[in-house]
């Protein structure tokens, strides 16, 4: 719950001290103003990228690319949506592209015996936990989180993005609409399917849910 309160606090801070002033300075060529925006948003963007790619190093690379792209395109930013929303869209695009690269590389490199096994229907099977590890209490918190992250990684891109934005980053439906440019009905249906898939995946991974 500590994490949640932190996120809420971050959101409040952004709302109180908006980015428009610094964005306009950046548009006039002030790179120091861009540094302030980087300091403000890097953590949030890193977490989004990390939950999408599932790899810390890749997430760092993704966020660097995203900020560089944002800087190059800052003059095109019209302020129709919030800067953080615009930046999140850029980060998601870079994360998506990076994920494709990772998938294509791992495809050519072969599959590790430790990787989850994908069935013909596309469902991912994890190693069934032993009897000793079957209860939630027996699992280390870290391991549990790693399993959750693995399950996120099994989702299709479109479901994963909605799940990360809504359930982890707690964006509103309007914000998700601005970021992904999809209607609210589509967001809801994707979220329903993403949660169902996550629930099933966790049931497989954890045994009990």
């Amino acid at each position, binding site marked *: 719950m500590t*994490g949640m309160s932190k996120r809420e606090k971050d959101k409040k801070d952004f709302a109180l001290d908006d980015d428009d002033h610094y964005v306009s300075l950046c548009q006039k060529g002030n790179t120091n103003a861009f540094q302030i925006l980087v300091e403000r948003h*890097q953590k949030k963007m890193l977490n989004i990228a990390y939950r999408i790619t599932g790899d810390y190093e890749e997430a760092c690379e993704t966020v660097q690319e995203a900020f560089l792209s944002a800087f190059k395109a800052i003059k095109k930013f019209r302020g129709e949506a919030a800067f953080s929303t615009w930046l999140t869209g850029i980060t998601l695009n870079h994360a998506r592209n990076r994920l494709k690269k990772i998938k294509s590389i791992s495809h050519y490199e072969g599959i590790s015996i430790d990787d989850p096994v994908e069935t013909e229907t596309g469902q991912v099977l994890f190693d069934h936990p032993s009897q000793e590890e079957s209860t939630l209490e027996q699992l280390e918190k870290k391991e549990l989180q790693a399993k959750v992250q693995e399950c996120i990684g099994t989702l299709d891109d479109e479901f994963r993005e909605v799940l990360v934005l809504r*359930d982890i980053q707690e964006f509103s439906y309007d914000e998700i609409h601005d970021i992904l440019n999809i209607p609210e009905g589509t967001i809801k249906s994707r979220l329903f399917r993403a949660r*169902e898939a*996550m629930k099933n995946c966790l049931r497989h991974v954890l045994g009990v849910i």
Partner: protein
Amino acid sequence: MITCKDIEEKLTAYQEGVLSPEEKGLVENHLAACTQCTSALAGLKKTVDLLKELPEVEPPPWFTQKIMAQVRQEAEEKNSLLKRLFYPFHIKIPIEAFATLCVVALGLYVYKTSGPEIKTYQAPPAAIVEAPAKDVSLSKPVERTKTIALPETESDKEILSQKEPRPQPSVQADAQRASSEPIMERKEEIPAATGVAPPAPIPSMAKEKDASVSVGAERKAERAEKAFRSPSRSKKADIKIQALNLSVENIASASTDIEKVLGQSGITLTKREFKDGLQTLIVHCPAQKLQWLLGQLRTIGEIKDYHEMPEVTDGDLQIIIRLIPR
């Protein structure tokens, strides 16, 4: 009949609190009676809780610096590209010098191609004929030709007047008239200027013309004069121009007399020019008063080099009166 599958599809919306009151009531009624759906809802809640409990990762300590290094490099590349294009320091001086030379050359070209033409058309062919030429010999055909055909520039006039200190009245013509026949005049002037043969003065000046004037050149000069005085030319121009020489005993007193005459008649004196002790008067005269004016001028001096324009009966005339000593 509502099935468990229908309810399960609504569970996420129920969880999000976005169902209508009716749908919400239906779901809650079903959940109260169905353990399977209640379990499904609990599973969903647990899933969302697990997602929300995921810890946030912290960016590495060098993260801001690394991002900003890339951003600054990008900004510098952008700036240096602009500088290379617009402020190339190393090659700035040669390029700017070259650009300056180009501008100067262009300016000279424009001046040379447009400037002299305007001046050329300021003097009508009738006015440029001036050939007492007692000191003009066959050995200097080009200079003489210049005197006749190209009184374009003041510097030329000065040089020529130094060489040949004879009367050289300058004549100002209307720019409108001048622009109407540029090609014809140029054509007539080119052979004269090349020094092939000196052109002939108009007939009334024939007694003064030099023996070196060839017949061919004389014809060319006549053609130029004809073209200048042709009806088509007069029709084109709004104001017709007539030039004449008035031979007088005393230029100063003659000038005063002409002014008096003009004052009585309402004919306006538009310009007066002094050059080498000679005077040129340009007057604006209605066509009906032309004969009267000529009569008055005959009382003051002897009119020379004047050609009647019988077709001119109305409109205005510009009369160029050159006062020359007898």
